[in-house]
């Protein structure tokens, strides 16, 4: 009961605040420019050069590229994660610049274990065998003749945020949470293919997925997922997969660790026993304080982040009384986002944010909260704002605090960190990455 009361109090005070501030807002604040009310804006008063000369012919850029002005919107990498001469490495997505719930193909995060392979689609073959009456080899054209399904799902590296178990390290949304992206995938359910192959359902418990790349990346998948929503995909946001995403074909296990979604796929084998591949033993296992490590840690748990503002997208151009949308992303590999709450004091007290747009299973979900900038970017408690989001999914999971998560998992597990994240807004409106925790 206490919780509900304070939630309502917060909502009422925030709404009252909003109406009060909007009533006294000046025209200059709305315009948000440095010009005084009487000055003329040269951008309006002069013909821009692009309006007075021919633009490009339609014959230019037959495959379109972004505006040259957008050149800072790119994947980025860091030496900390440079393993194998950047061949067993990752380049991360600029999610501070992301719009909606789809990542453009050229910005989708890129992770490889032996470099990005360039597969000749004419030589692509997919072999499916083991414990079945009719093993099968498919060409790309044959694979695409199966009845297709199209689904929008995020893919996340389970090491997203994994550099920050012991404390914040990246003053950047791109590096703190950009080990993930979201796309619309087209392919075929594996259950559609194997129902024709006479698989021994008594014996088949595990499926090996193996890539054709330099590292022959492989992982073991339980039959439960194969019979649920596991897909073999060739389409990404309406076109062929990019090489970085496994062209021509990858496995997609909606909601589960990115590395399980084996790229440059060549082979699926069914077996009674699991495989112990390198990337499910030496890596992608989460060590707990007991000394035991969690293996086969499949699903990326419920998570969220504030996108606007963020260290890259601060509030330095805003001042007291300005009304601004706080916006963010929430996602869960366990199901569908049901609630996102927002805190201004680092996760001590929350108000409920609004979900917006499509809310789909195992997919990025946008959330929003309209907010009036307080004096000095200070909370009513007198301290600088500490913006924290916290998501819930329809499986009933809620993000833990950093402390709650560390109390169970310790700080050495590398993978699957989904504790709430906090941005501190200083008196200039700059945004810095912090964590609220005891140690």
């Amino acid at each position, binding site marked *: 009961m206490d919780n509900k009361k304070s939630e309502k109090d917060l909502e009422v005070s925030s709404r009252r605040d909003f109406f009060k501030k909007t009533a006294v807002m000046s025209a200059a604040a709305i315009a948000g420019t440095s010009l005084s009310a009487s000055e003329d804006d040269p951008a309006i008063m002069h013909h821009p050069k692009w309006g007075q000369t021919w633009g490009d012919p339609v014959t230019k850029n037959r495959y379109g590229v972004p505006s040259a002005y957008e050149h800072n919107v790119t994947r980025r990498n860091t030496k900390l994660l440079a393993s194998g001469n950047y061949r067993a490495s990752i380049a991360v997505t600029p999610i501070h610049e992301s719009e909606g719930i789809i990542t453009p193909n050229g910005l989708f995060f890129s992770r490889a274990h032996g470099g990005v392979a360039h597969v000749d689609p004419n030589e692509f073959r997919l072999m499916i065998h083991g414990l079945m009456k009719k093993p099968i080899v498919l060409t790309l054209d044959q694979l695409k003749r199966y009845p297709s399904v199209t689904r929008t799902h995020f893919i996340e590296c389970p090491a997203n945020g994994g550099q920050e178990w012991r404390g914040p390290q990246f003053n950047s949304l791109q590096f703190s949470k950009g080990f993930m992206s979201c796309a619309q995938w087209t392919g075929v359910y594996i259950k559609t293919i194997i129902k024709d192959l006479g698989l021994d359902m008594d014996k088949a418990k595990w499926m090996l997925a193996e890539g054709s790349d330099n590292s*022959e990346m492989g992982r073991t998948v339980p039959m439960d997922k194969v019979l649920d929503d596991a897909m073999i995909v060739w389409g990404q946001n309406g076109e062929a997969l990019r090489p970085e995403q496994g062209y021509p074909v990858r496995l997609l296990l909606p909601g589960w660790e990115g590395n399980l979604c084996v790229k440059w796929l060549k082979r699926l084998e069914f077996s009674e026993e699991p495989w112990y591949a390198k990337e499910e033993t030496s890596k992608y296992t989460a060590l707990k304080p007991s000394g035991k490590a969690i293996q086969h840690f499949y699903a990326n748990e419920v998570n969220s982040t504030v996108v606007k503002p963020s260290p890259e997208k601060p509030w330095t151009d805003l001042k007291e009384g300005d009304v601004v949308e706080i916006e963010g992303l929430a996602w869960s590999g366990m199901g569908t986002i049901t609630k996102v709450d927002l805190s201004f004091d680092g996760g001590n007290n929350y108000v409920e944010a609004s979900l917006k747009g499509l809310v789909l299973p195992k997919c990025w979900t946008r959330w929003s909260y309209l907010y009036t900038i307080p004096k000095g970017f200070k909370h009513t408690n007198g301290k600088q704002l500490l913006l924290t989001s916290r998501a819930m999914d329809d499986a*009933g999971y809620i993000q833990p605090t950093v402390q709650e998560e560390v109390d169970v998992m310790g700080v050495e597990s590398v993978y699957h960190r989904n504790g709430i994240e906090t941005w501190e807004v200083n008196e200039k409106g700059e945004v810095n990455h912090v964590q609220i925790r*005891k140690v």
Partner: protein
Amino acid sequence: MFKLEKSKLVISASAVSLVALFAAGCMGGPANYPKGDDIAGGVIYPIENGMTGPYLVNQTALDNTVYQGRVPTANELKAWNKDIQAGGVGLPEGEGSVEDGEAIYEAKCVMCHGDFGSGGGGYPALSKGNGAEGQKTLTNNRWKDPEAEGPSRYFGSYWPEASTMWWYIKDGMPHPKSKTLTNDEVYALTAYMLAINELEVDGEVVDDEFVLTKENFAKIKMPNKDGFEPKVHGPSGLDNVRKYFANPVNFGAIKVSESSRCMSDCQQTDKIVRIQNGGIDDFHPPMSVERSLPKNNEMMAVKTIKDPKETYQANCAMCHDSFLSPGSAEWKSYTRKGMKKVYKNAIKGTPGGMPAKGGSSLSDSDFKLVVDYVVSGKVK
């Protein structure tokens, strides 16, 4: 309900979660949104009434037989079905000694993985000493004391199965030139890994005389074999996984109902931990959200790195900093007969793991400038 799932339900008594999903689906929830737990603790959206979750499906298309492709030949199956399972199941005939393994390691692996597998330069360590001793460090956790020693995770101390090493060396090594080692070479390298990790085979610590074979492979003792949860091997493997992830406490997760989630006084502390010492900010390209036009539109052009030092840092430093570093004395034994062979090896790559042009896309003449720099330590 989908045919395959139904047949599994009838045949397999152990399909606990699928039975649960059936029951949950019948119990309701919002229309067309039946619920159940999947093996990883998440929600299943079964295909029912032409829908899965919010998506419409063509049930007829999914239920009919649409066989494509052909049956692989016996030779094709043999060519691709080369994975190795726990205990060495699937290993080919062959053998290799620790002594041979060391020689191959020195020729093909040391430049990246370091002396005796010590790692460095962005490549993982293969040993940090005795595996059984290393295994004892796995309970180290800089959890309450940030200054404490962390756990030491390497082949001997951490990996549950030796088959993983054999399989990965065969498929993925040497990293710039994979799938070039013979089966005997892989046995020898695996034997050398056992030796530098001081592991036991058939009760004896592996020494320099040891020879690893298909026959004695199953007798390798991995100190951390039982260090993983849930147990995935054996008839109850899948059930173990289902049970493990059905309990959020096992993996640091929290489940609550929407109405009882904490909305006030939720934090255990008000301590703010900030980024220490500036944190990590060597981002490439540097972080910027400017929307100014790049100078000379250079971002739109294919950039050729012509500064040999820059190429070295980007492509070569990770291995060469510790082996034949720029201007090092070690180069003398390679350049005694002139630069021709050195250029050729650099441009074409070597079996020892040097990738062609270090993986760069420079022209031959530009790359020779990089070679000159690595050999002499000076930019001409």
